[in-house]
């Protein structure tokens, strides 16, 4: 167990998949160390779900060397299946039977004894706050409850590696935060999580490592911090209430972008302590006193739109002029 391949829970080299003449995955490489959260981030249609389907043995790849849980996907899919748990995008619960029966079904399929199955089912239902609804048909559950039941079913076999395909899509904010809490608990217990999401904050919150997928290719990867550094766009914003102070400041400071309507100035900055101090020194030297100073670091949104070539449509009422937006520079 000393080679690196054994320490990787999931590894893919040159993963390709095409449906007809439509290339969905165009030679992607992935490496997910054991016990970490990996997030595949991308817009709709980027190929995220296809990647999950392939890695979870649902669909075969056209090319690529793939290993999950130390087993080769091409030759030992059964062993891979024994090591993984999958919660797909669409609810995979049996709506005709109760939540408890769904759990016991999973226990039976994992060949747990009757007693062990009942214990595990009761434990997980309790943990996912479903004990009260356990005797009701799963079709009567709310969206959030169905997702929780779905994940609880995935955990019956105590899988070492879990695939979560857009686990919070369609959930209300509270259910979403609950789901994040559950995922964090799993990771704390040593489980490896492979997560796809189209929500940048979700990847930011949960993932140790993020790969941005666009058009079947990994266009960037790294930690959230590393990705943010890829994109310029950090700045310090000064706001003034008095137009005269604003005008004199604007003339005194040359390297700034002016926003006359809101009486604010933007100074490019990566947001590090040192850069910030030098800006403050500079302002003091020029004898400028802004009424409000805010530091903006690029968020994953900036990275995402820069890398995937989409336009950022988020409303920014305090910046009516978009001609100097960092995203524009990057494009």
């Amino acid at each position, binding site marked *: 167990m000393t080679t690196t391949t054994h320490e990787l829970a999931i590894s893919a080299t040159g993963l390709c998949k095409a449906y007809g003449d439509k290339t969905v995955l165009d030679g992607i490489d992935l490496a997910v160390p054991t016990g970490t959260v990996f997030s595949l981030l991308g817009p709709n249609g980027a190929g995220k779900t296809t990647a999950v389907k392939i890695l979870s043995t*649902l669909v075969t790849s056209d090319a690529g060397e793939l290993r999950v849980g130390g087993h080769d996907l091409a030759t030992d899919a*059964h062993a891979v*299946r024994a090591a*993984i748990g*999958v919660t797909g995008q669409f609810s*995979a619960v049996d709506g005709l039977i109760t939540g408890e029966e769904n759990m016991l079904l999973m226990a039976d399929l994992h060949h747990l004894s009757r007693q062990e199955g009942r214990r595990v089912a009761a434990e997980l239902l309790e943990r996912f706050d479903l004990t009260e609804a356990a005797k009701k048909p799963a079709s009567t559950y709310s969206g959030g409850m169905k997702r929780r039941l779905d994940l609880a079913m995935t955990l019956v*076999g105590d899988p070492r590696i879990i695939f979560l395909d857009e686990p919070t899509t369609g959930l209300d904010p509270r259910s979403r935060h609950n789901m994040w809490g559950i995922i964090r608990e799993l990771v704390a217990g040593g489980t490896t999580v492979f997560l796809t999401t189209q929500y940048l904050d979700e990847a930011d919150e949960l993932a140790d490592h993020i790969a941005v997928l666009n058009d079947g290719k990994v266009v960037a990867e790294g930690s959230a911090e590393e990705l943010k550094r890829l994109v310029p766009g950090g700045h310090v914003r000064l706001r003034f209430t008095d137009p005269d102070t604003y005008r004199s400041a604007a003339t005194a400071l040359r390297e700034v972008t002016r926003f006359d309507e809101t009486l604010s100035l933007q100074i490019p900055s990566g947001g590090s302590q040192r850069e910030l101090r030098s800006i403050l020194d500079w302002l003091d030297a020029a004898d400028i006193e802004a009424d409000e100073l805010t530091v903006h670091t690029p968020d994953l949104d900036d990275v995402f739109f820069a890398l995937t070539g989409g336009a950022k449509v988020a409303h920014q009422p305090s910046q009516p002029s978009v001609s100097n937006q960092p995203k524009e520079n990057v494009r």
Partner: protein
Amino acid sequence: MSTLSLAVRDSSTMLRRNLLHVRRYPSMTLNLLLTPIMLLLLFVYVFGNVMSAGIGGGGADRSDYIAYLVPGLLVMTIGSTVIGAAISVSMDMTEGLIARFRTMAVYRGSVLIGHVVGSVLQVLASLVLVGAVAVAIGFRSTDATVLEWLAAIGLLVLFALALTWIAVGMGMASPNPEAASNMATPLILLPLISSAFTPADTMPGWFRPIAEYQPFTPTIETLRGLLLGTGIGNNWWIALAWCVGLTVLGYHWSTSQFNRGLK
């Protein structure tokens, strides 16, 4: 765990799931049962006297027609009940649950085996119910031996197995449960153009071969022969050939669709 014990264990788990569905929601099974029972009562009590006079050798007494009709309706019950299998397979395939099973270290065939065995058991239960109604309205077998009864039951099971595999294939091929139900409709229409209600030789000449050689007629004629002592002729082996042929066809159709992966 050996492959065989894995297969048996997982398949029986899947079977338990399917039977649980039937137990929780008996309305679908009962709805499907309604057609043969309604037709039985309609043809016996409304058309009975006329039909009885019409079939060869029958007097103007509906009891002759009851005897003629019941074997046909028992076989029709099979066609009607397996539609449930098409619908439930389709429901399974359109939901994410099958995808979950596929990502688990579960015996691959267990999902389909669960459906097939569940459907055959359901058919047997339906046959007992329809049979009970038939006996209640006066159907009696004319001195069939134990061996003939066993052969009759065996034939019904084989035919149920064959039609179930076809229905499972239909369920897999359908994009949603409604389409599955439509696609499976021929399974209750075919008996209407078989010898279930009237002898095939009373039909127009050009149509007779279709009526005589489609899967239902030879099966019905064989069952009639076993229960009532009418002539079976070459019908028994045509019926067996249909059973084996449809089972093989349905099995390959279903499993190839199942293994092709999700759409």
